[in-house]
């Protein structure tokens, strides 16, 4: 068995900033990756979408570089971006080794000195840019609003996973510049952040640079962890009209949090159900019976609790009811018999290969620096890479079977039919209409 590892060194600065260094000298680039442990889970109703809007403001300048964040780094040959999800906000740049000082100067300036640069004009412009992002990625996209209907049905309204990270359009419009200050002070400081430097840099120099640029920033108070619970007591059927040609059914369940027992098993269940032509549902629904155009399954692993989502689009003229029945039959078979030896063997080979693929890039979304931060921020242990793979290696026929039987129950789930406008008859029977805006 190939030994697969992601070595690192970690230190925590006096102000609470975690610094993690990984050396890889194959290409003369360094990934600077920083996670703030804040996402839309830290928002409250009426202010949804704020964490993401805030991320936009982080690119508009800081006190000592009071203009766009992009030009000095693009001029240095960097690739950079950021993203916000329910649990965290990350910022990364992949820079030539020669530009590491500049990247850290800028990253530390916006960690320590953002607020003087946030003007009303910048704030309002980014608010409009975000509204455009929302229109482009959700409102103007087929099936784009389905996930909003699903999450708001899965979680109670005060649970922060009940809204999407992009937020509601009304909330975005209502945001005020004054909200920025409190948000920054609560969440953007060294003790709520984790910095990874990965790539063509020697470990001692990396720590020296981290200390130099971030060491004198004031620590701040660690935010109180968010606690929220959700449960489902029945099957809820919903229907939503959309500008689509073909109906699609979504089935969603609440499932164990990221890294919790059964999380890896459900990942494997998703694979054996709907990943590739050999998967059960692809094979029956798409390949053999041809009643569906596509089928997908995914364990959406998150910090406070995950959800497992199955989706299938009906082939022209085919009914969602038949697809739905077939999915349930397959889940029943799996709950009774579990995966075959072949399925287990294949799933493990793929999982292992996926872990190796994840070692190819130092930076960017999902690169080695991002993974080290994920493990550090969510588990406090950047060295979890091998243990993470072991979660999959340890999975057995019975643990996979029982995970699916335990969590993918018929009597606790949300079933959403998305149908072409005005064609209510295409929805599953007994579905209540739902609208999202």
């Amino acid at each position: 068995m190939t030994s697969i590892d992601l070595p690192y060194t970690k230190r925590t600065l006096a102000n609470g900033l975690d610094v993690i260094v990984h050396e890889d000298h194959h290409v003369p680039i360094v990934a600077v990756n920083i996670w703030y442990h804040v996402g839309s889970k830290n928002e409250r109703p009426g202010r949804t979408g704020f964490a993401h809007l805030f991320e936009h403001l982080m690119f508009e300048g800081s006190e000592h570089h009071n203009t766009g964040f992009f030009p000095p780094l693009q001029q240095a040959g960097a690739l950079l971006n950021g993203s916000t999800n329910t649990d965290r906000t990350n910022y990364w740049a992949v820079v030539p080794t020669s530009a590491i000082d500049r990247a850290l100067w800028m990253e530390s300036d916006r960690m320590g000195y953002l607020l003087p640069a946030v003007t009303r004009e910048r704030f309002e412009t980014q608010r409009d840019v975000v509204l455009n992002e929302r229109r482009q990625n959700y409102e103007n996209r087929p099936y784009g609003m389905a996930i909003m209907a699903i999450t708001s049905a899965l979680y109670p309204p005060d649970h922060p996973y009940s809204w999407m990270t992009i937020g509601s359009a009304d909330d975005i419009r209502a945001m005020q510049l004054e909200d920025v200050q409190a948000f920054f002070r609560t969440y953007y400081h060294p003790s709520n952040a984790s910095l990874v430097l990965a790539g063509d840099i020697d470990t001692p120099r990396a720590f020296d640079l981290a200390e130099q640029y971030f060491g004198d920033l004031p620590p701040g108070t660690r935010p109180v962890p968010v606690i929220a619970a959700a449960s489902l007591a029945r099957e809820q059927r919903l229907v939503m009209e959309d500008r689509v040609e073909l109906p699609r059914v979504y089935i969603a369940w609440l499932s164990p949090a990221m890294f919790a027992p059964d999380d890896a098993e459900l990942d494997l269940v998703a694979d054996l159900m709907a990943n590739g032509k050999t998967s059960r549902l692809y094979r029956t629904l798409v390949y053999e019976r041809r009643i569906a155009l596509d089928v997908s399954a995914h364990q959406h692993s998150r910090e406070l609790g995950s959800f497992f989502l199955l989706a299938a689009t009906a082939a022209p003229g085919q009914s969602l009811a038949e697809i739905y029945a077939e999915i349930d039959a397959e889940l029943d078979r799996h709950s009774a018999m579990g995966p075959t030896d072949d399925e287990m063997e294949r799933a493990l080979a793929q999982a292992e290969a996926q872990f190796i693929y994840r070692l190819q890039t130092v930076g960017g979304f999902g690169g080695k620096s991002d993974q080290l931060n994920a493990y550090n921020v969510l588990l406090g242990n950047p060295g979890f890479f091998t243990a993470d793979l072991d979660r999959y290696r340890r999975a057995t026929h019975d643990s996979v079977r029982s995970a699916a039987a335990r969590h993918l129950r018929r009597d606790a789930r949300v079933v959403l039919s998305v149908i072409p406008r005005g064609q209510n008859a295409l929805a599953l029977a007994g579905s209540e209409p739902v609208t999202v805006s």
Partner: protein
Amino acid sequence: MTGVDRSRLPAVGPDPAFSFPEIARHTLSNGLEVRTVEHASVPLLTILLQVEGGSGADASDREGLAAIVADMVDEGTGALSAIDVSDAMARIGADYDVDVSPDVMSFSITTLARFATRGASLLADMTTKPSMRETDFTRVRQMRLDRLKQLKDLPPAVAERAFLRLMYAQHPYGHVPIGSDTALKRISLDDTSALHSAMFRPSHATLVMTGALSHQEMLEIAKSAFGEWADVGARGTPVQRASAIEPSEMAPPRLAIVPREAAAQSELRIGHLSARRNTPDYPALLVMNALLGGQFVSRINLKLREEKAYTYGARTGFDWRRGLSPFVLQASVHTASTADAIADAIAEIEGLRDSRPPTQDELVLAKASLTRGYPRNFETAQQVARSVAQLALYDLPDSYFAEFVPKVNAIGEDDVTRAAMQYLVPEKMSTLIVGDHSAIADSLDTLGLGTPRVLPPEL
């Protein structure tokens, strides 16, 4: 150690040295050209077969055929069914990727280096000896027809289809690889088998292998997997080469719209046919594009997004092919801002040609963003394999990577202005909108682009 001078940004040091991949070339006895690159950072291997003829090889009444040929490659070979092929790939943890572009198609498998032999022989069997069974063909074609139906709901896909047709009319570059409903329905299994035989010929293909093996090991694997591949296609009809056909001189309309009632945003495309990928002006065009619309800090993105907040993002680029290729601006803008966004975008293009030539700062930034980050493109085996395949596609020398940075750095302001004058002609550009026609009709009149030609969602 602490204490930072925050009065100015740290300077950037000299560019670090980087050795570009060394490419070893061999030609097998059947004519297959093999290019190998040793790339040992992770124990993986990418094996990529690129064959001549992509969607540009489709006859005008068979648009979508090449893409169906590509789809049939993983639908079974020899005794293996489509399911068996998928199973065989899963067992070696393979990542299979297909790319159908206008001039070529490529098929690649990335797998663990210890499965190199299995991966290569699987790829060889799939690409050179696909089963071409009627049932698989029927399913694949039906899935593409259904997919087309779905694409009608996706504004960027509608825009891409309509814009290519505006640019190229009936030229073989004028359709997206998936083709059209009418043409797909006409395509038979015989058509598919015939095009496969014509396209898949060792003497008209390039095999690229990059990964954690030596040149010699990779060559041996290539020989054992692809060495027996016979050049039977030599007796058949040659594949149509789109790049050898000149696009029509007929000017497309200046303004066209695909109506999408109550659309939240307007999907825009603005451009015209402009240059060929192998033009000596390529470095000047890259620099020009970077500062105009090719990066976040470009003039057009800063104007449309950061200043006016019309859009989440706007960008320009060349949709490169061997023949004459379009320069195109793309953005999805708020419906209410559609006409203003178009006017501002065109004004930026005009400005670069006359009133606002590139400043020294812009030039430095554009060049640096292209050159300083260049080594980043050689981090993974897949990236390297794709880059090497591009050399074969555009007939570029093995020294291309090493020459890229000096060539870009040699570009001056005058080169950019000259390139803008020669390759961007605002009065010839077509503007295509996929959006709410009734909501924007009045404002479009102010653009001076004439009455929009109204296009159906399917072309």
